[in-house]
């Protein structure tokens, strides 16, 4: 298990905006140990179970990351960070309840959804509805392997062509370089089709 390191809100932000994955793991551990109990306790109070708490916390932390990464949110204090996690968990829970209700009452689906969303419209809520990142992840899935791994390793984790070639057992770095460009071309094509 990672040793838990305490971070200030500004350190959390700068790590999440960096590309240092070991640091990102450490910050995730910090956020998990700091806010998972609060979020889980809220979900249990609302009648949710362990799986609900797990799913909602996962969504909350991803939303938080996307907002921080895209410069839309920058917490100034730990209290603000905690409030943010609870607020997003609350919105997520409402959304889940709505989805459950929709399943039961198909006829009222449209009205219920819009009324409640209007009532709970917040910057966080707007981001929750921003599906850009999820859409991109779907395209990445379509891209398939090994392209997905090559691109994420090179552009995401910033590994060198040599390291990726070794990881994927492709001996020749030049071949890997060509392969990487092919994958990037394929991704561009898929994205343009998706638009």
């Amino acid at each position, binding site marked *: 298990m990672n040793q838990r390191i305490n971070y200030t809100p500004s350190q959390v932000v700068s790590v999440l905006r960096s590309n240092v994955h070991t640091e990102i793991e450490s910050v*995730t551990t910090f956020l998990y140990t700091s806010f998972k109990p609060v979020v889980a306790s809220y979900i249990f109070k609302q009648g949710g179970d362990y799986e609900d708490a797990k799913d909602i916390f996962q969504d909350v932390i991803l939303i938080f990351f996307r907002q921080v990464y895209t410069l839309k949110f920058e917490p100034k204090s730990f209290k603000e960070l905690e409030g943010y996690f609870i607020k997003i968990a609350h919105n997520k829970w409402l959304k889940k309840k709505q989805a459950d209700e929709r399943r039961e009452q198909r006829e009222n689906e449209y009205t219920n959804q819009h009324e409640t969303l209007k009532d709970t419209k917040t910057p966080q809520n707007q981001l929750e509805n921003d599906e850009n990142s999820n859409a*991109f992840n779907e395209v990445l899935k379509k891209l398939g392997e090994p392209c997905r791994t090559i691109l994420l390793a090179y552009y995401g984790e910033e590994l060198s062509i040599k390291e990726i070639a070794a990881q994927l057992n492709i001996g020749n770095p030049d071949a890997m370089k060509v392969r990487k460009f092919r994958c990037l071309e394929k*991704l561009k094509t898929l994205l343009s089709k998706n638009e």
Partner: protein
Amino acid sequence: MNNQENFHRLELIEKYCNNTLSPSEILEFEELYKNDSTLAEEVEEYKKIVDLLRMSSVEKTILSTLERLENEDRALESSPIKSYKAAFFLLITTLAACVIFVLYASLTAVELPDFENDLTIVRNTEQSVLTFDDKEVLDNLSRGQRCFKDGNFSKAVEHFENVLDSQNTIRPYYQEAAEWHLIVSYLKNDQVKDAKRLYKQMDNCSEYVYPISSLDKIKLWWQIFWANLLK
């Protein structure tokens, strides 16, 4: 544009964005930029894709870390270490409860129920017609009880022994009352062996008429045990 040209173009864009163009490549890129209006768009597109790839990669790391943390939490919930800890905690709690109970039994006074001064104490005797011996038994019993209450245990021992030595057949209730009082009196009077012997004898009985509580019996056992040990 063939594949080779395409890759070269992409490589130039990548190097331009990473600021790693060589001097000759800079010239080539600037030339291209002047003559190709789509290059600027391609640069922006490249930046956007790289940004999305970075985000996706970080999300992947966050999700795998969360998955690991959740698994570690679950493993900890069901780990033998946690079970051992719970068992150890239970054991310590039980031991502490036992120690507290033993201390309570060893240090608090045994409370024997008072017995009534019943004139029919001597069996087969009419109330109004008591022999001298019968009167003596009754007298010893009441004096024994008084000495017991006053804390004069040596005298209490004497009186209760007289009751039990009597040749008359007294009611089991009073006999047992005298015996239990005698055990406590022996104990208080430092006659631990006598207390132990009589307790053992009483403990072997299966039925009691005199209503001594189980708790008081346990208290007596522990007090005899400690007195015997410390002697």
